[in-house]
């Protein structure tokens, strides 16, 4: 897997070539393709097909283009990576989680994960003790959560791969140091599921539809499939999917729902308000991540309470929230300790690259803005 530092280089090279007057014809095609999307309502499967066809057409056009005369396959590939990133960044708000169905599935999945998080334990998925490594799991989860910081399918896919690599390393290490027999997918999938992917449906669908199909093969396809599979498992999950007593499962879910309802009442934005506003107009990624923050804060309902506001009835809930906080805090501490030992540098550059890119249109000023327009 290529590092992310090369990714920004690739992208700059692409932008540079697009600024060359000789590429005017390519720029025109790109521009009119992007504009053509504003004429129709979102239809993910169709849109995906259109984008894939466009990639193919453009790949041929680039191969035959004087600017790429004598270019190696790899250079053409780089141009295509640049093209994918450019086009999909421009079309992001139009293509990501673009239908009410997708928004609904995301919401339902994350609500379910919320409920499950209150009681799900590794033993419910029969995850062997040697693999219960909180620090690694947090790290994997952290890699996956970066997915929402990127708009390009390739970069989103990289987050999936990085997350899977952390889990892979955990399994490989356990097989070497703990003498745990390497059990492949038998162990991989449960750990991935337990790593609690954030609301992934739209991200996975986006990658499947808009990543260049020639790149969705081999290892990348395999790990993406594992995430789709983890998401599906969680979405369909019931007591029978877990090693848990059915009554205990229902009771735990019910308890978690009650807690959630109480917290929702106290949290400012109502759930209904949020859904409808999302269904009508796309608030864009910034608004969405803001939603996430507020719903995260609503996990801790007593923040604005005085001692006098509390009743005996609150004790049980207070205790469970307290336990949650302590568990998360200890987990985080361990993870942070491990992190300082094994820092992952590339992502810093990655984020930088993203910021630079987003400010790119302003920076490059008139001449490129006129050609590769909004």
């Amino acid at each position, binding site marked *: 897997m290529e590092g992310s530092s090369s990714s920004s280089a690739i992208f700059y090279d692409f932008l540079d070539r697009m600024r060359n007057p000789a590429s005017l014809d390519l720029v025109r095609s790109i521009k009119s393709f992007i504009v053509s999307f504003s004429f129709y309502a979102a239809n993910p499967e169709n849109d995906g097909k259109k984008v894939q066809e466009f990639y193919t057409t453009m790949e041929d056009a680039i191969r035959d283009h004087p600017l790429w005369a004598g270019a190696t396959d790899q250079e053409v590939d780089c141009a295509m990576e640049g093209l994918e990133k450019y086009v999909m960044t421009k079309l992001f708000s139009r293509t990501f989680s673009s239908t009410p169905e997708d928004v609904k599935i995301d919401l339902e999945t994350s609500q379910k994960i919320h409920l499950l998080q209150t009681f799900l334990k590794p033993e419910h998925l*029969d995850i062997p003790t040697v693999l219960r490594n909180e620090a690694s799991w947090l790290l994997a989860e952290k890699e996956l959560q970066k997915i929402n910081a990127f708009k390009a399918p390739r970069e989103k896919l990289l987050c999936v791969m990085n997350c899977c690599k952390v889990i892979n390393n955990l399994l490989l290490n356990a097989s070497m140091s703990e003498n745990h027999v390497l059990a492949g997918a038998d162990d991989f999938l449960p750990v991935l599921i337990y790593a609690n992917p954030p609301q992934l449906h739209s991200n996975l669908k986006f990658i499947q539809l808009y990543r260049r199909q020639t790149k969705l093969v081999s290892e990348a396809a395999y790990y993406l*499939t594992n995430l789709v599979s983890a998401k599906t498992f969680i979405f369909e999950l019931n007591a029978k999917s877990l090693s848990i007593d059915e009554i205990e499962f229902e009771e735990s879910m019910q308890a978690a729902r009650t807690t959630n309802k109480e917290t929702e009442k106290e949290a400012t934005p109502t759930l209904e308000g949020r859904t409808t506003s999302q269904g009508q107009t796309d608030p864009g990624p910034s608004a969405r991540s803001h939603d996430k923050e507020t719903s995260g804060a609503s996990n801790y309902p007593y923040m604005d309470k005085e001692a006098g506001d509390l009743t005996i009835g609150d004790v049980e809930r207070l205790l469970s929230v307290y336990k949650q906080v302590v568990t998360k805090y200890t987990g985080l501490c361990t993870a942070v300790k491990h992190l300082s030992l094994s820092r992952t540098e590339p992502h810093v550059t990655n984020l930088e690259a993203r910021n630079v890119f987003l400010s790119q249109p302003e920076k490059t000023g008139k001449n490129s803005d006129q050609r590769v327009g909004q």
Partner: protein
Amino acid sequence: MGCSASLPDRSSSGRLVGPNSENGGASDAKNLRVKLVLLGDSGVGKSCIVLRFVRGQFDPTSKVTVGASFLSQTIALQDSTTVKFEIWDTAGQERYAALAPLYYRGAAVAVIVYDITSPESFNKAQYWVKELQKHGSPDIVLALVGNKADLHEKREVPVQDGIEYAEKNGMFFIETSAKTADNINQLFEEIAKRLPRPAISSTQNP
């Protein structure tokens, strides 16, 4: 038990292949790229078979992807064609059975593994055969593998049962031992020979 590999086994007729281009879907008549999915009960040794196959042919110059659940390995056949196997492991636990279609979709080969000491795993293997016949791609190559063949004294599934079931279902059958590396390379070579070739090829297809 388990798949602690001893010495690399180099006696196979499938020669090693040097680094080959990781470049996308480079599949042509001489160099096939093949998606192979592994199915079977948890604990039958699916991953061990693959690790044996990949590590047994280990060579520093060969580009092998070693992950915990995705592996790839290229073998060269006598007719100077190569086959690159991209091996998709699946979780064998019952609770994940419904997810299998996500994995076997588009697979050219399915290797269905059972444990010769466990009749339940043989039943599960038959379940997978039926499912693939119904929902797999129509020209998928199916292989039935009885693993842990080194555990003779604990055998509970007679060889004959495996042979007969495979014959009835038009599958390739072999018993292997990931532990002793018995028949591991043969399994993959035999699969390679049975793959439908895109034109030109001079392989004798069965």
